[in-house]
């Protein structure tokens, strides 16, 4: 695990990267809201939304499958909605042999729509983080008057994720370095012992990350960090290309809703 793997920001210089971060944040949020509010089975609108994502990925020099692949991570979470297939009233497609569960067409359509909506929304969020650096993103949130506390929580989580992966890497490497074998002995230890070592490593990970996070915080305090301090923020003006892109985004959002509803 390399720390940079965590950082989704793709250092490229495209027109999308150069857009005002505030605009990108707002458009992403509205796009997600629009996505979620599209009716079930609005296949045309879903397809159009995906087309928009693909074009933006292309313009951002990310490659066509960049967001689609990464957004697959949402699939296991959509399983929580699987019961809807059976509970939605509608025409029965199939009756399960046990209990009296009926698989309905409306239920199936809603379930598939939920999966597509989540997948599309996550892709949009991935697009945002891939084209906006973390610092810019936080600055944009500040300019959009998101409360300082929330921004700080997000920044801390982000910073400590690195602490956590870093400690994990170190522990795993330390163990790997001494996973030796002798030619004439059966090594590796018993399953129980290996499990105990792994368990202890998880404990170590918690302890070490906790204490290291503490030291990071002390270092921040030592350099004058004060959580009460609200930093003065200078928010630049939007440039004309930002306004144009914003207008295009609004038009696309309207189009999506029209395609989805009529």
């Amino acid at each position, binding site marked *: 695990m390399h720390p940079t793997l965590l950082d989704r920001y793709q250092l490229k210089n495209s027109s999308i990267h150069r857009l005002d971060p505030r605009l990108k944040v707002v458009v992403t949020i509205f796009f997600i809201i629009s996505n979620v509010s599209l009716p079930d089975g609005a296949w045309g609108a879903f397809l159009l939304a995906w087309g928009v994502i693909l074009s933006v990925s292309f313009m951002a020099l990310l490659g066509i499958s960049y967001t689609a692949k990464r957004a697959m991570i949402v699939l296991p979470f959509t399983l929580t909605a699987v019961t809807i297939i059976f509970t939605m009233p509608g025409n029965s497609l199939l009756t399960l042999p046990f209990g009296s569960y009926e698989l309905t067409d409306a239920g199936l359509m809603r379930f598939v729509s939920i999966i597509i909506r989540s997948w599309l929304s996550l892709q949009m969020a991935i697009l945002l983080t891939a084209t906006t650096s973390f610092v810019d993103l936080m600055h944009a949130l500040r300019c959009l008057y998101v409360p300082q506390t929330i921004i700080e929580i997000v920044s801390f989580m982000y910073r400590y994720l690195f602490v956590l992966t870093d400690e994990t890497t170190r522990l795993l490497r330390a163990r790997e370095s001494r996973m030796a074998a002798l030619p004439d002995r059966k090594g590796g230890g018993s399953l129980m012992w290996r499990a105990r070592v792994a368990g202890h490593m998880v404990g170590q990970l918690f*302890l070490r990350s906790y204490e290291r996070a503490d030291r990071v915080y002390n270092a921040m305090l030592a350099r004058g960090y004060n959580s009460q301090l609200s930093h003065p923020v200078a928010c630049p003006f939007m440039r004309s290309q930002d306004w144009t892109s914003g207008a295009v985004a609004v038009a696309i959002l309207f189009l999506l809703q029209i395609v989805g509803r009529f």
Partner: protein
Amino acid sequence: MTLNINKLNFSYPDGHVALKNISLRIGRGEKVALVGPNGAGKSTLLLHLNGLLVGQGEVKINGFAVTKSNLPLIRAKVGLVFQNPDDQLFSPTVFEDVAFGPLHMGLSESETLTCVQRALSQVDMSHYADRMSYHLSIGEKKRISIATVLSMNPEILVLDEPSAGLDPRARRTLITLLRNLPLTMLVSTHDMLMVRENFPRMIIMDEGQVIADGATESLMNDIALLEAHGLERPFDVESKA
């Protein structure tokens, strides 16, 4: 040859070239010091010796190439101690950490116990067996780190700045230990006095390259060479102090 490195090149994932065309051979029982300024590539080179980093070129231990299938056997031969003791220790107690290597190699519990006790007493830390390794001082951790590989009975000892952060007595214990252990050694260090005392051969690295490789006695007299690579002759250090 116990250790044979041939035209080794390595770059870190961010593109930084850390090793350039390194070739060196170390015979059985030789004790070699690796010196050079910060960032010279010493630690990077040492991490290649038990396959934690793999570059282009050839690294052979006792004639075996360091490849994935050979790694377990090679790690039993090469005891590597990281520069930062927090990179070395991963168990809750000192005892468990020192016992990990022997147990993983398949030694019985009584054999392991003997190895652990011997290793801890070699670094003068016998009474620390039940302490939590994470809450030790840096010097204590360094000594435990060395014990974690001594307990595995390696043939080649690869140490990354073992004497840094030790108090004078612990440093003296370490120097005596290294002098008396009949193992092949490659030790990276900034401790020029220790080099002169313990290591008949010295390799100077800078900017990822081997600059000089020869008898410590003669290289130590080449003050221009030493100064060009951020080093000092230990005699000068002494007279200043």
